[in-house]
Every structure is written in C-alpha cells, then in structure tokens.
C-alpha cells in the first residue's frame, strides 16, 4: 500500500508545491478515478492495468480543466478560500457518485485477484505486489519528468518564484493547470494499481485524503522525495498499528502522526524552510 499512498501523495504535494493550495478534493478525485477504472472494466471489459494510459489521460484533462476554469477563479490570495472551494467540489463529486453509482461497494474481479507470489518465505498477494512496483515506476517517471523536461523545469520555476517565472515568459496559468493535471494524473495511475486489490464506493476518498495529507506533511510540503519516503513510512505505520491495536484504532496512529508533525515540525522530515 505504501507505494500507492506515495503516488497519491505525490500528486497532492505537486499541487501544493506549485500552486500553494491545499487540494481538499484530492480524495474525491481519486474516487472518480477509481470509478473510472471500474466503469471501464464493467462496461468495456478493459483490464485495470490496461486502463492505465486512458485513466492518466482522462484525469489529466479533468485536472487541467478544473484548475483552469474553476479553482483558478478563486485567485491565490487566501488559502482558506481555495480550501473551501475544493471542499465544495469534493462534496459535489462524492454525492454525484452517490447518485450515479449508489452507495454499494464495488470491486473488480480479475484472474489475478487472488493470486499470490512467493518470495522466499513470504507470500505476497499478486495485485499488491504489482501495485507496489507499478506505483514506484510511475513515481520515478514523474520525478524524471520534473527533473529533465522543459515542462518540469517550468513547473519548478513557477513553484520557486512565480513573478520571476512570469517575467521569463512562462505562461504561469498554463503551468498551474498542467501541474494540477499531472497531480490528478497520478491519481489516475494510482487508481489503476489500487482497484484490483481494493474496492470503490462514493466515500472511499475520505480514507485516503488524510493518509495523503499526513504523508505530505510528514515528507515536507512540496517535497517529492519526502512524499515518496513518507508514503512508504505511513504504509508501514498503518500495517503495524493495525496489527497491534486493531484495524480501527490503528488509524488513530496516522492522525496522531499528522497532528504532531503539523504542530512540532511543520516543515516535515526533509523540508528546510521553517
């Protein structure tokens, strides 16, 4: 799970790092992506892993349009307003899903659902194993994009110094929308890896939103490496907490990590700016 968490958090931290907004609708967007994968499988018979490029493209376009035409309008003046706006969006998404898909929990059934892979002494469930490496792969791809392409450079430039980037001729609005799109595209990829091992219902995003916020805070807001390591760490914390304290109390561990990091070390593990 850790790697998928990391991928989800990577999308969130990208949006935060570049746009300096906290996207509260991140969980709801993940839910949309999960339903997208589900719908592709149920209606067209597309294998969840084969849906990867479709979902990445779809979520990217959704994110681009969302930023360009909705979130952008709230301006970048007060972060609470964007938070409220994305809260409103997440309420809309969640309940639209409730209307269209009803509240049933759905799963995808594939031939490899219950397969296991034996690694030495350990038995691993195959979908989780694929999810781990797939999510790591996509994360690595994204880091590479950020590092070596022109788009990545533009995004990093805008994240660091908005006015300066504008003066250099970078279309800031475009870059904002691109980053938001990429952030959601991460969710599209995460959804493809997640669904064979997981389930989807309209409120599934809520479970993830806190986990990914925690990871982002843990790793330092806007830090990509931090998000990756934080994701893996939270995956471990969650399974250990679940093992020793029981399923529901184990979740408390995540929140406690979240609150205490926000209070005592808001810059995260790797953030430098206080």
């Amino acid at each position: 799970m850790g790697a998928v968490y990391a991928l989800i958090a990577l999308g969130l931290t990208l949006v935060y790092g570049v746009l300096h907004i906290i996207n509260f609708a991140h969980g709801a967007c993940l839910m949309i992506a999960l339903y997208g994968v589900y719908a592709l499988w149920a209606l067209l018979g597309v294998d969840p892993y084969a849906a990867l490029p479709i979902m990445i493209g779809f979520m990217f376009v959704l994110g681009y349009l969302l930023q360009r035409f909705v979130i952008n309008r709230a301006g970048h003046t007060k972060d609470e307003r964007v938070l409220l706006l994305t809260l409103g969006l997440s309420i809309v998404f969640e309940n639209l899903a409730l209307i269209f898909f009803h509240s049933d929990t759905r799963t995808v059934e594939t031939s490899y659902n219950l397969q296991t892979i034996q690694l030495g002494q350990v038995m691993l469930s195959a979908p989780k194993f694929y999810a781990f490496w797939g999510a790591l792969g996509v994360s690595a791809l994204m880091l590479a994009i950020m590092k070596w392409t022109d788009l990545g450079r533009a995004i990093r430039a805008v994240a660091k110094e908005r006015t300066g980037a504008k003066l250099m001729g970078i279309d800031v609005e475009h870059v904002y929308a691109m980053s938001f799109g990429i952030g959601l595209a991460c969710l599209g990829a995460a959804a493809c890896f997640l669904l064979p091992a997981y389930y989807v219902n309209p409120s599934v995003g809520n479970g993830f939103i806190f986990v990914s916020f925690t990871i982002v805070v843990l790793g330092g807001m806007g830090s990509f490496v931090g998000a990756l390591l934080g994701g893996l760490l939270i995956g471990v914390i969650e399974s250990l907490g679940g093992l020793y304290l029981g399923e529901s109390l184990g979740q408390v561990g995540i929140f406690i990590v979240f609150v205490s990091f926000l209070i005592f070390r808001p810059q995260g593990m790797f953030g430098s700016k206080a």
Partner: protein
Amino acid sequence: MRDIKFIALFAILIATLPFLTHSGVILNFVVMALYASLLAQSWNILGGYSGQFSFGNAVFFGTGAYVQAIAQMQFAMNAWSALMLALCASACVGLFVGSVSFRYGLKGSYFALVTLAMAEIFRILSLSVNFTGGGVGLMLPLNSSFAGMQFVQKSGYVWLILSLVCAALLITSFIKHSKLGACMQAVRDNEDAAKALGINPFSVKLVAISMCSVVMGAGGAIYVQLFQYIDPSIAYGPQSSVEALVAAIVGGVGTLWGPIIGATALLLMSELTRNLFGQIPGINMVIYGFVLVFIVLFAPTGLTGLGVSVRTLFSRSHNTNHRNKVDGGEDLKGLDGERAGSAESAENGADRTNLTNLTNLTNLTNLTNLTNLTNLTNLTNLTYQTNLTKDNNSPKSQVTQDTQVTPDTSSRTGGK
C-alpha cells in the same frame, strides 16, 4: 443598541409563531432552521470574527451530544444539568484543541486540517471505547417532560432552541461591539499588526474557540434531545462541520445575521429539492456543494454581502478606478468582496469609531512595517487597504504611491 433591539424583535417574532400556527410542517421547519442557525453561528464566531477556519467543528458538536446523552443515561442526571455539563465539556475540548493548535501558531489551512484530524481522532476513539456504545450508538429513552427536555409538541423545541440561538446572537453581538471583539477582528485582519498593538493573539483566539465550542456543544446537545439518538459518525463525522460552515459562508461570514439567513436559505433549498427530485440520495449535498463553490467564487461575502455590495457599488466606484491603476488587479479580486464585508460591519455598528480606529491603526502599523514586505502582491494589497479608509485618504495614498514606485528598495531594506 440596535442589534439588541433586533434580537429581541426576532425572539418575540419566532416565539409567538407556535401560537399562530399548529402546522407541524412549519414548526418543524422552524425548529430545524433554528438548529442549523445555532451551528452556523458557532462557526461564525470562530471563522467569521476571528478568522480561524475550522473544518472540524464536529469535535465540539459530538462532545456536547455524547455528554448530554451519557450524563442522562448513565448518571441519571436531569436534562438541564446535563446540558450545563455538555457545554462545559465542549468548552474544555475547545480549549484543548485551541491551546494545542494556536500555541504552535497554526494558521489558515493548517488549522483547518488539524481540526478535521481532531474530529477524526475523536470519531475513531468513540467507535472503540465502551461508554459511547461504539458503532451501535446511544439511544436516549423517551421522557416527554420539562425535566427531560423532550417535548410532545414542537413548540417546546422552538422555544428551547430559540433561547439558545438568541444567546448565541447575544454572544455574537457582544463580540461585535466589545473591545474583545475588536481584538478578534484585528487578529483576523492582520495578526502581526495586532501583535504590534499589544494584542495577545493566542489568548484572543483561545477565547474565540471556547465561545465557538460552547455554542457548537449546545447544538450537539440539542441534536440528542431532538432525535434521541447519537452514534460516532453523526457526532464526529464531517456532516455537522460542513453544515455549520456552509451555512455561515452562504449567509455571510463575520456578520450577526448572516448565519441565520444562510441556514434558513439552505434549509429552504434542500426542502424544495426534496420536493422536486424526491428521495434521490445525495442530491441535497450536491446542491450544498454547488452553492458553496458558487458562493466562494462569485460572492465571498455571502447573501448579506450581496445586498451590501449593490449598495456600496456606487459609493466605491471612484475608488475602483483608482485601484485599477495599480497592476496585479487579479490578486485584488478576492479581497474586493471580503473588504466589503468588513466595511459593512464597520458601518452598522454603534461604536463604529472603535472599529475604524482599529483598522486605521492596523493600516498604520502596516505602513511602518513595510520593510518586512517583500513581494509585489503584498504591496498592492496594502494600497488597496489604505484606499478603503476614506477618512484620511490623501496623506496615506501619497505614502503608498511612494512605496509603489520602489517595491524593490523596500524589500532590500528589509534585509538589514
């Protein structure tokens, strides 16, 4: 005191309603509208007047509800003393949440996220401990009497909740007109400037969050009395937080009557959609969400603000022209509405001198603190703020003209 008169008028008007009509539909609507207003007013005290946006008001709501239920069921207290206990308990939780998050200077979105996380922690805890009944929840036994605070007729609830709403209104109007309230608003508008004036932001925010939590706890207790049932997801789930927040924002943040108008308008709308669309699950919330998005995008001051902006459109037109000369107009869009809101609250207050003095002072400290500001947007915001204070417009706009020309030097001098 104009506000007090209006509150009294409002109280009399609603209180006589049960004598005029026995229609269950109307009285039920009034009860629910009052209940929603109570939640919204609670959010408004913290979010509207002291600028701390909470996403987890459910913490206080749930605590109030659980204490109310447990005190009656397990300790056989009567409902009224249980209510007192519930208020105290939610105030304690408020102080705890406030002292933890404000002591370490959590602001804006971070505060919002921490309150949300707190609500989640409480929800999970209440699921796993015994005395809350776990996931099954608590069912309050029926006891229709005055001592049990349960009424056969809706009118009892109308009066009960009305008195609580009036208490919340009185608290809010006290905040609006007292020195404490002025401090809260100063902290909301510019915390650093407020600090420079000798206000202790920590204690001001702490008072605000305890007031907010008391009112929200009352809301929770009322919920238990109304529905005789509580479980973890009702108590600490996001529903009540969202309800409080959306109603306050729709009605108008930082105004006395905004939350009441907002709560009533939202309730009316959800009743209408229920009639139109029947029982499609979630359609209510879709509309809630859309309304929230719409209000945030196009009318940040809410319904009360819409009326005011029409009124002030003409009087502010020359200010707008002046403002357009300053570049970075896009950043000002958001402030536009918010300032209209605070201008309104300054206008209709009895002690408006008090408030305008304070904003003047904050602006002055802003100007002297100019060296601290590094980027252009801050400067343009500043020019806008000074433009709005009409009293001594001319000398200040000169100052800002100067700073406008040399934004870079000011940022450089900040370094030394």
